[in-house]
């Protein structure tokens, strides 16, 4: 600790910290543009010049290390003169277009010019003009002349997003921020550059000119997308969400949010929104009031329960629904005598059901990821599935941690990866067994008998050696590993691997409320009435389905099977915010409110329950799903459905439990069995869920749908496979799975393992295909 004096205030600050840090501690504000606490120091804006006693010239506070006994003056004559001078220089080329600038009213340059600038400009010459460039559908660079070259966006790309997509070309007055020739900014975190830009040079394209900052009211919410549960501020104008920005929460999302969190709000205002309850009568859709619609649902369910038995009623919900909704859904189903309720729509292995110690979770607090020094990431499209968790791992790797990957695809993680083993889906388990065996040898521990026979390869030894040398090991199971047909076995091996190196293991939660859904009991094995899991409900079609926010053609592990089950059902009740494919097979459509229009709770992947309130009123006749379920409960005479608020539901569902002892990944009572059934000749499907197809909301976010990540998925094959088939990149091919086939273009991807074909799931172009894992054949179309 060193002592330093700032404007007469004595502060103690850490060795190696800067004058800016010390000033921050002392509560003294020093104006700045290029400095940002999460980015490296570049000291190029010069706005933070301060006077340091015994220094001949003013020094930049952000880049001057604090030293013992230093005396700093931020408001002395010299400092003020320097700040005024810098401000004048910065304003030389800055256009005076604040009235039409989207940043106007929340602009750092505007604020600081008010506080530190002169009243008039002495500059009468021509101002610099920078031509606008196209850098994609999310960030507008139409007014690059506003740029003050702070390079925050450049540093963000390099340091946080992991890829330098924007750079500064040329020198002095010709310096410009630009992307590489004709390329766009495609990072899944790119929207943060808009927040970082202290002026209006990088602005949000979807938001462009829709509102001024002072017209917006700011309401806190929680991201309904990935498992992280980023804290959001919804900016509301005229009862519409006009934009979304992050709320800083160091333990969850730091000060970032992913583009999915930021731009998905467009889906809230989509023209596809369902506005009134609808009933299908004689093959035609009729808009009705809530009362007859709910009456119709209650009667239908009562009839089916009476004639076929309650076990013929099934409910599927997405884990993007709130805790309250899921809790009431399962309570309703169990109340009428059916245990068929599940949220694990894309899961295919249910052998660990009821044998896990608690809700599958991350196994550690999110913030601990930064402290880990060895990672083993199993089966995860990390960047696309968990943009901000990937960012945390990237930061850890930067601090010296090493990442190891076992996966079926080799996507660029934009960070150095120490070792990777890219294998076909059916070899993943074997590969993990190899790692475990090698690790046991490394640690001189006993090798479990079940895996003693595996032959250990070089890649596995490298991974094991790497893990063995770590102090803080984190083994993380991605979405792909959770959806894998041997998910339970993968988890068992992961547990053993983590145990051998005294590390922790856990699941990267697929959705905002994956943990919450489990805690709410929206699983067939919870509670007193047990039933069928998601796969069984479709394999043995039920007579009635209640779908909560589910789009079966896109959200299910096997969309083909799901659709035929829906079509065969006597009654399908769809609770959805959107009109969608359900118009074909549903009998009732109930408009429910998305996350911005309802109060609720999401329990994120680290088991953090975050409640939020509705930011805007539900659109037209839409109603929060918990209210709909409550009334359904009353109509069906299920007891205990007299809630007045969602908080009462939450209190009943969450209050009695302390979350910590309800979380648990340990699986007991399942024997290790690494045998893999050989499922015939053909190519094994490797399927990811594209980042902007993952849930109903992002699918309707217009701008996200125009990005490269939302392009129609290609079939990816490795080069030798393509040669065998005689096709080239860009050719149309027919992909068949079982008796279903679709036509897609083919793309070469040499990092795919032999015998694998990558075909995305969750996208309308591939919705006709079968399960996410399985055998496919590809032929020239």
């Amino acid at each position, binding site marked *: 600790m060193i002592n330093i004096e700032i404007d007469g205030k004595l502060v103690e600050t850490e060795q190696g910290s800067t004058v800016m840090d010390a000033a921050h501690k002392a509560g003294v504000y020093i104006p700045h543009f290029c400095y940002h606490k999460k980015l490296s120091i570049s000291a190029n804006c010069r706005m933070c010049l301060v006077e340091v006693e015994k220094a001949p010239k003013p020094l930049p506070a952000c880049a001057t290390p604090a030293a013992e006994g230093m005396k700093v003056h931020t408001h002395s004559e010299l400092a003020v003169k320097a700040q005024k001078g810098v401000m004048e220089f910065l304003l030389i080329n800055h256009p005076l277009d604040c*009235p*039409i600038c989207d940043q*106007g009213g929340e602009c750092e340059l505007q604020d600081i010019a008010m506080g530190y600038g002169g009243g008039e400009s002495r500059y009468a010459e021509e101002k610099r003009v920078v031509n606008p460039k196209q850098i994609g559908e999310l960030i507008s660079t139409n007014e690059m002349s506003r740029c003050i070259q702070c390079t925050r966006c450049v540093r963000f790309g390099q340091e946080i997003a992991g890829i330098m997509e924007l750079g500064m070309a040329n020198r002095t007055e010709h310096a410009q921020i630009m992307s590489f020739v004709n390329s766009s900014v495609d990072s899944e975190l790119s929207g943060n550059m808009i927040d970082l830009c202290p002026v209006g040079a990088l602005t949000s394209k979807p938001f*462009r*000119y*829709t509102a001024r900052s002072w017209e917006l009211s700011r309401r806190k919410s929680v991201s309904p997308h990935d498992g992280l549960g980023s804290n959001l501020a919804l900016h509301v104008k005229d009862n519409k969400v006009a934009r979304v920005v992050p709320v800083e929460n160091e333990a969850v999302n730091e000060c970032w949010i992913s583009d999915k969190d930021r731009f998905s709000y467009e889906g809230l205002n989509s023209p596809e929104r369902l506005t009134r309850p609808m009933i299908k009568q004689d093959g035609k859709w009729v808009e009705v009031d809530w009362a007859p619609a709910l009456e119709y649902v209650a009667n239908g369910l009562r009839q089916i329960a009476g004639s076929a038995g309650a076990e013929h009623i099934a409910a599927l919900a997405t884990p993007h629904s709130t805790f309250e909704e899921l809790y009431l859904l399962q309570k309703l189903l169990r109340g009428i005598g059916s245990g068929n309720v599940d949220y694990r729509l894309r899961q295919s292995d249910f052998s660990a059901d009821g044998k896990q110690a608690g809700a599958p979770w991350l196994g550690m607090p999110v913030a601990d990821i930064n402290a880990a020094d060895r990672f083993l990431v199993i089966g995860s499209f990390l960047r696309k599935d968990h943009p901000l968790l990937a960012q945390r791992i990237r930061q850890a790797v930067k601090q010296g941690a090493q990442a190891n990957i076992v996966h079926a695809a080799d996507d660029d993680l934009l960070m150095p990866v120490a070792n990777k083993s890219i294998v076909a889906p059916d070899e993943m388990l074997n590969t993990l067994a190899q790692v475990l065996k090698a690790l046991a040898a490394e640690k001189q521990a006993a090798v479990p008998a079940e895996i003693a026979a595996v032959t250990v390869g070089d890649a596995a030894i490298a991974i094991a050696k790497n893990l063995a040398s770590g102090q803080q090991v984190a083994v993380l199971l991605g979405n792909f590993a959770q959806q894998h047909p041997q998910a339970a076995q993968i988890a068992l091996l992961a547990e053993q691997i983590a145990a051998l190196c005294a590390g922790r293991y856990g699941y990267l939660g697929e959705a905002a409320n994956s943990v919450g859904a489990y805690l709410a009991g929206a699983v067939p094995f919870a509670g007193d009435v047990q039933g069928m899991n998601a796969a069984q409900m479709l394999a043995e079609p039920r007579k009635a389905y209640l779908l909560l926010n589910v789009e079966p053609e896109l959200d299910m592990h096997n969309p083909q099977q799901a659709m035929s089950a829906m079509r065969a059902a006597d009654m399908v009740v769809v609770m959805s915010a959107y009109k969608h494919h359900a118009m074909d097979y549903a009998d009732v459509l109930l408009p429910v409110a998305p996350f911005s229009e309802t109060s609720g709770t999401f329990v994120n992947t680290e088991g953090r329950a975050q409640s939020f309130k509705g930011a805007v009123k539900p659109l037209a006749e839409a109603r929060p799903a918990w209210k709909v379920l409550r009334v359904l409960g009353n109509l069906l005479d299920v007891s205990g459905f007299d809630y007045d608020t969602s908080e009462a539901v939450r209190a009943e569902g969450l209050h009695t439990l302390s979350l910590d002892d309800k979380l648990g990944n340990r699986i007991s009572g399942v024997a290790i069995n690494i045998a893999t059934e050989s499922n015939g000749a053909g190519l094994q499907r490797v399927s990811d869920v594209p980042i902007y197809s993952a849930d109903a909301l992002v699918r309707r976010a217009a701008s996200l749908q125009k990005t490269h990540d939302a392009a129609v998925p290609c079939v990816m094959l490795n080069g030798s496979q393509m040669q065998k088939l005689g096709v080239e990149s860009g050719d149309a091919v027919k992909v068949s799975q079982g008796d279903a086939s679709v036509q897609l273009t083919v793309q070469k991807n040499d990092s795919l393992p032999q015998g694998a074909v990558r075909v995305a799931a969750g996208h309308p172009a591939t919705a006709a295909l079968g399960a996410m894992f399985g055998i496919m054949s590809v032929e020239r179309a």
Partner: protein
Amino acid sequence: MEKIKEFFKTFLLFELLKGMALTGRYMFARKITVQFPEEKTPQSFRFRGLHAQRRYANGEERCIGCKLCEAVCPALAIKIEVAEREDGTRRTTQYDIDLTKCIFCGFCEESCPVDAIVETRIFEYHGESRGDLYYTKPMLLAVGDKHETQIAKDRAADSKYR
């Protein structure tokens, strides 16, 4: 002495004569009553009457939809919606002034960075119903188009004081 004076004044109708003298003076003095609407009083170039939206000489509307007037309006009489026009410029899609709310303070004119919204010398506008006093963008532009010469002259006259 004073008391005696008062006493005589009360029955000699002194006050009445004094009042009649004033009446008589005005009877023969020069008349100042204006015969509205045939005659009108002179106006300052800063007169704050009916609002108008101005255009540039090339016919382009001045307003850029910055919404400063909406923000500054103490009576909340202004309502603006903005969108990007096909040529990429920021333009209003809606610009309404509710003249029944307006208090003619002139803040809108003062806040406007492009002199788009102005208050003209017109004060004898009317409407047959309340709704007629809800001025929309085309109406405001029409006022501006009709009176642009006068508006420009008034701004020029005021410019040296601004």
